[in-house]
């Protein structure tokens, strides 16, 4: 039996700690396991007994890259449990906040983490020596996203201004208008990003994913909608538990997730785009066309093009919201406490994020369930590797390892959210 071992100790440019093990026997790929040894973080457990009003700020601490997603799923779930409805103005401001997060998170991933894969560099530092303008553009775009977070969230990381029922403070019209010039520049620059990443060389692979994302809300999804799939699923977030289940696998401290009766599914840019492309703004739709995207996309390596299109959309949407903005009379609606169960799904940059909370009559959390996108995507990431890696087995070890890392980065996994480094271990035997 031929045995060949390739070991990449640290897979950089992902958030969190984990390892990938590939076992190859006699030239055939036998196993592809994403092992997550990030210690469990027990957020669901220590939310018990906390006031529902505290939860958005606690869950924001789950992730430094996508804190808004955790705040948004938490507040919407609490509002569902308490039976309160937010005003259209608050809803628009939450979309604007999400635009900021999509911009900063997508741009970080595209420019600093994923582009080096396509341009043949070990990382952004090496890439910057030959392509300083690319890195400068990325940093400038990211900064604009951060400025939205700072204005609406109170600060750029782990925002503190979101509350159940609305915001603690809403911006004056003038404050939003001050963002306009930077957003216009950012929107122009984001069209350049689409052109840049669309010119990368993509492995010619596709998979028949079950795409799952929010949709049917009459808008490209951020905060609301039904949970849809390209295989016919159409449910409300309240029905999520009946259709999806988490399960433990020994190799991972993050729970995996499956669509009951169907198996692995994929959330994130590919799913969102494939289920909602027609809801992008005309400018973003044109950018998608110019970027070579069709109505759907099943090649995960092209996820970088979709992220770029989503950044165009986020700038466009942010400008639309700012231009239409009229400050609400009150920054929040009252949130009288009552017992209940609340559910919400929102679209984190890297995929759909489900929260469920059960509250007592005082509004204290009795139990919590948080299903991050990376937990949902883990089985699909492994399936990608099982599907793609056999085509690459003849490649030198270093190239094989690199492509596998890139295949993982296609999905911008946030392992620390799901439970933090990835270690890649390829065994050929």
């Amino acid at each position, binding site marked *: 039996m031929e045995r060949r071992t390739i070991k990449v100790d640290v897979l*950089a440019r992902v958030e969190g700690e984990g390892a990938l093990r590939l076992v190859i026997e006699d030239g055939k790929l036998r196993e592809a396991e994403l092992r997550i040894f990030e210690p469990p973080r027990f957020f669901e457990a220590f939310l018990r007994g906390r006031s529902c009003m505290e939860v958005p700020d606690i869950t924001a601490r789950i992730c*430094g*890259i996508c804190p808004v997603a955790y705040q948004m799923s938490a507040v919407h779930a609490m509002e569902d449990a308490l039976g309160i409805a937010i005003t259209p103005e608050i809803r628009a401001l939450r979309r604007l906040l999400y635009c900021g997060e999509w911009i900063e998170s997508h741009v970080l991933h595209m420019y600093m983490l994923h582009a080096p894969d396509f341009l043949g560099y070990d990382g952004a*530092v090496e890439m910057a020596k030959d392509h300083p303008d690319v890195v400068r553009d990325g940093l400038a775009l990211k900064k604009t996203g951060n400025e939205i977070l700072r204005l609406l969230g109170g600060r750029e990381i782990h925002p503190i201004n979101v509350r159940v029922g609305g915001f603690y403070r809403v911006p004056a019209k003038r404050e939003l208008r001050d963002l306009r010039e930077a957003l216009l520049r950012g929107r122009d620059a984001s069209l350049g990003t689409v052109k840049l990443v669309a010119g990368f060389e993509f492995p010619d692979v596709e998979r028949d994913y079950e795409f799952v994302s929010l949709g049917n809300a009459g808008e490209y999804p951020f905060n609301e909608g039904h949970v849809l799939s390209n295989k016919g699923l159409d449910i409300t977030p309240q029905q999520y538990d009946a259709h999806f289940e988490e399960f433990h696998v020994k190799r991972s401290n993050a729970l995996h997730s499956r669509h009951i009766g169907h198996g692995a599914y994929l959330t994130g840019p590919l799913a969102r785009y494939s289920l909602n492309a027609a809801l992008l703004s005309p400018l973003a739709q044109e950018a998608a066309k110019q970027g070579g995207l069709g109505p759907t996309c099943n090649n995960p390596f092209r996820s970088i093009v979709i992220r770029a299109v989503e950044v165009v959309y986020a700038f466009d949407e942010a400008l639309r919201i700012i231009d239409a903005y009229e400050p609400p009379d009150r920054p929040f609606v009252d949130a009288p406490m009552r017992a209940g169960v609340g559910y919400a799904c929102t679209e984190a940059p890297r995929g759909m994020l489900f929260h469920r909370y059960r509250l007592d009559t005082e509004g204290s959390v009795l139990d919590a369930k948080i299903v991050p996108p990376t937990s949902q995507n883990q089985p699909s990431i492994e399936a990608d590797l099982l599907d793609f890696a056999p085509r690459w087995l003849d490649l030198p070890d270093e190239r094989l390892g690199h492509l596998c890392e890139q295949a993982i980065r296609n999905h911008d996994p946030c392992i620390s959210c799901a439970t933090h480094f990835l270690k890649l271990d390829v065994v050929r035997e």
Partner: protein
Amino acid sequence: MWVGGEGDGPPEQSSARTPPPNLDPLRGSSPQGEGEDRVLHRLVIGIGNPDRGDDGVGRLVAQRLRGHRPPDIHIEEQDGGAAPLIEYLRNADRVWLIDAAVSGAPPGTIRRTDCNVTDALPMRTGASSHGLGVPEAVALARTLHGLPRVCMLYTVEGVIFAPGAGMTPAVSDAADALVARLLNELRSA
């Protein structure tokens, strides 16, 4: 937090580097905090996570320095993410970065590295977002727009980095020693 061995650089180097010709003045909004809309002449940045034991030593130094702050010294605390650090390094003339380190040296060991002299700061895997932390920020800033005229990195060796842990007494003592040393250096810088 830095994870590195001997690569943390010899102490007490001094830079003979001339000011980078392409140090941009502030354009648009500056990093958040005091000193907006102006070039940051002298900037101290304490880096780390105060909730992870010795990792908070950089920020502790920044906080203690505030109580003795000489005029026109701008003091910031950061978690170590690359993007804001690059921005600070673009907008400041003289910068002192304070961070925790792990190299196997005794706890509380202080190292001083002149980033304008040392090309190869140890890239490492640490408590930063998506693997982009202080060394990457310094390297990117150097490539993109040149480093500040003075760019000094002080590290304090730590041993305990667990979430919620307290600070090792030797590390806390070193923070006091480093504050005194920095005050001395800042007076003449």
